[in-house]
């Protein structure tokens, strides 16, 4: 009886709690279902269709694993995204650290400048880099005018140009990821270490860096996933010989009209990014556990 009494008195409350909890989630859930889950499901479905008849087949997947050029493009995407993630994190770290610790009145200006590139569109910024890095661009023209070089340096239409352009595009996101993490580290820890005789470098190395590893992982993840899915910058700065997954998907959809194969490539790209995000989040949560032990 007592058990029955307890359950009847608690169950309405639980029901109310669950309805109240989930009601606000309904609108975003519907939006996500309609504009993300359904199209994603359709894309997965298309990847199993044949190009002509629409019959179920694994032909496009088979083509993916046997097509050398596509696999090279996949490998290129991984290398490019990895390099961009590292460059973004390395460049963003000192800036984020300054923003987290500074009390200067210039702090707000620096923060605004760090985020300012996002105000201009990606295509605009990429064209800016094209003007700088092109064979007849600013850098090559200046070096040739000074007489340092006689032939233009290969600064664009290759991996270097794309990594530079993407690093610039993604840098503000890296700064924001790291800033959140660094602001969570108490400045008292650094002061204590310095009072106990640690040098500034030792404080950074033994206190700040280990505690900010979750932020570093976040920045690497943001950099990697944004670079892997970027289209405009690789298309404009990469040139004809630099194909990555995003540009190859575009070609399959609009030029070759092979939507099943494009869907396969998009799915593989999605799996790559989910895999990287999963590994990153596992490392991050393990580090967090260790830090709070």
């Amino acid at each position, binding site marked *: 009886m007592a058990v029955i009494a307890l359950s009847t008195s608690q169950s309405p409350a639980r029901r109310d709690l669950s309805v109240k909890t989930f009601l606000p989630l309904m609108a975003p859930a519907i939006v996500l279902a309609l504009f993300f889950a359904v199209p994603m499901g359709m894309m997965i479905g298309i990847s199993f269709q044949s190009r002509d008849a629409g019959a179920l087949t694994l032909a496009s997947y088979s083509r993916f694993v046997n*097509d050398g*050029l596509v696999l090279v493009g996949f490998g290129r995407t991984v290398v490019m995204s990895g390099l961009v993630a590292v460059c973004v994190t390395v460049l963003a770290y000192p800036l984020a650290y300054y923003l987290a610790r500074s009390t200067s009145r210039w702090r707000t200006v620096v923060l605004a400048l760090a985020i300012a590139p996002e105000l201009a569109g990606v295509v605009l910024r990429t064209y800016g880099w094209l003007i700088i890095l092109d*064979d*007849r661009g600013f850098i090559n023209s200046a070096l040739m005018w000074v007489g340092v070089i006689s032939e233009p340096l290969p600064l664009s*239409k290759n991996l270097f140009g794309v990594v530079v352009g993407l690093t610039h595009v993604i840098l503000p996101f890296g700064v924001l990821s790291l800033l959140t993490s660094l602001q969570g580290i108490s400045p008292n820890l650094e002061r204590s270490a310095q009072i106990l005789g640690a040098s500034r470098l030792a404080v950074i190395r033994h206190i700040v860096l280990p505690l900010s590893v979750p932020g570093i992982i976040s920045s690497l993840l943001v950099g990697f996933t944004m670079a892997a899915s970027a289209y405009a910058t690789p298309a404009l700065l990469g*040139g*004809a*010989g630099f*194909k990555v997954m995003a540009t190859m998907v575009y*070609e399959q*959809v*609009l*030029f*070759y*009209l*092979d*939507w099943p194969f494009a869907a396969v490539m998009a799915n593989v790209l999605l799996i790559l990014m989910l895999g990287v995000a999963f590994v990153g989040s596992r490392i991050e949560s393990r580090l967090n556990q260790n830090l709070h032990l």
Partner: protein
Amino acid sequence: MKFSAFCTGVLIFVTLAANSRAETLVVNSYGGPYERIIRERIITPFEAAFGIDVVYDAVGSAAQDYAKIKATNGRPGFDVVVMTASQSLEGCREGLLMALSPKNVPNLAHLSPAMASVAGPCGAVHEVQYLSLLYRKDKLADPPTSWAALADERLKGKIILPTFQNTMAAYLVEILSVANGGDLLDNVEPGFEAMAALAKRSIGFEQSSSIMENYIKDGQVWAMPFWNGRAQLLVDSGLPVDYVLPKEGSIPLMATLNVPKNAENRRAATKFVNFFLEKASQESWVTGYKVGSARTDIDVPADIRAKQITTEADLKALHLPDLAGVAARLSAWGERWERDVVAAAN
């Protein structure tokens, strides 16, 4: 009684308002000079003749428009779309475009049968361009006469090529194949070999025709393959450039008018297509946009006739492509282009 009289009045007003509103037609095509000329030469006269309001939609390339038609199963939000013969064939095969015939578009009967057949039953060829050899008059004293001129020693590092995603590339492979003893479809080996040799001597590849033309404008490039319609615009702009139809011939680019299968105003759309194919409209379009026509009965000035495809004799200088055959081989050619041609340039 009063209420029913009021309702009847409202009903009559709504019916009259609906009937008095002009029919609307959404035409999707290109922006820039194209938009200005099509508005002036075709759309305004069409609106005056039929009392149909035309809404002009210049958003998207032909490839993007086709993707939109495919994604919406033939109801993309526009009623007439300008694409190429390749997309007309593909759209017809996929059942996304309305079939056009002399029954619903009487002027189709006046098109050259050879040209009309290339685009298939869903595309009305309203404009013909060809792959020409564009060159700088101030750099090359003797005008080139052959595709082989691109391999001239003087042009080393002075030519630019399209990427494979620009339709020009596949056509260039085909025409170089024919010029070097191969054919248009099954034996394109000589074409790829010639392209690889050209790639080594080029300054690189560009996908967009508008970016390609910047290279010849600033003198970085002295010669390049280019659609003759765009080449003519450069000539007319006063640049020291000219273009030729090389002696080995060329391959035409046929622009087509298409009506998506489930377009909202299909009746008005077929009227527009038919109007565009009228003799007077074709003459106006050919003289305005400086392109060729699939109608060989048009009267145009001699200077335009000399450069454009307007007669049966002109058609003989062209190699008409089997676009379905090209589409079937496009993926394989694209892979080969990356392996042989792009690799040769690097």
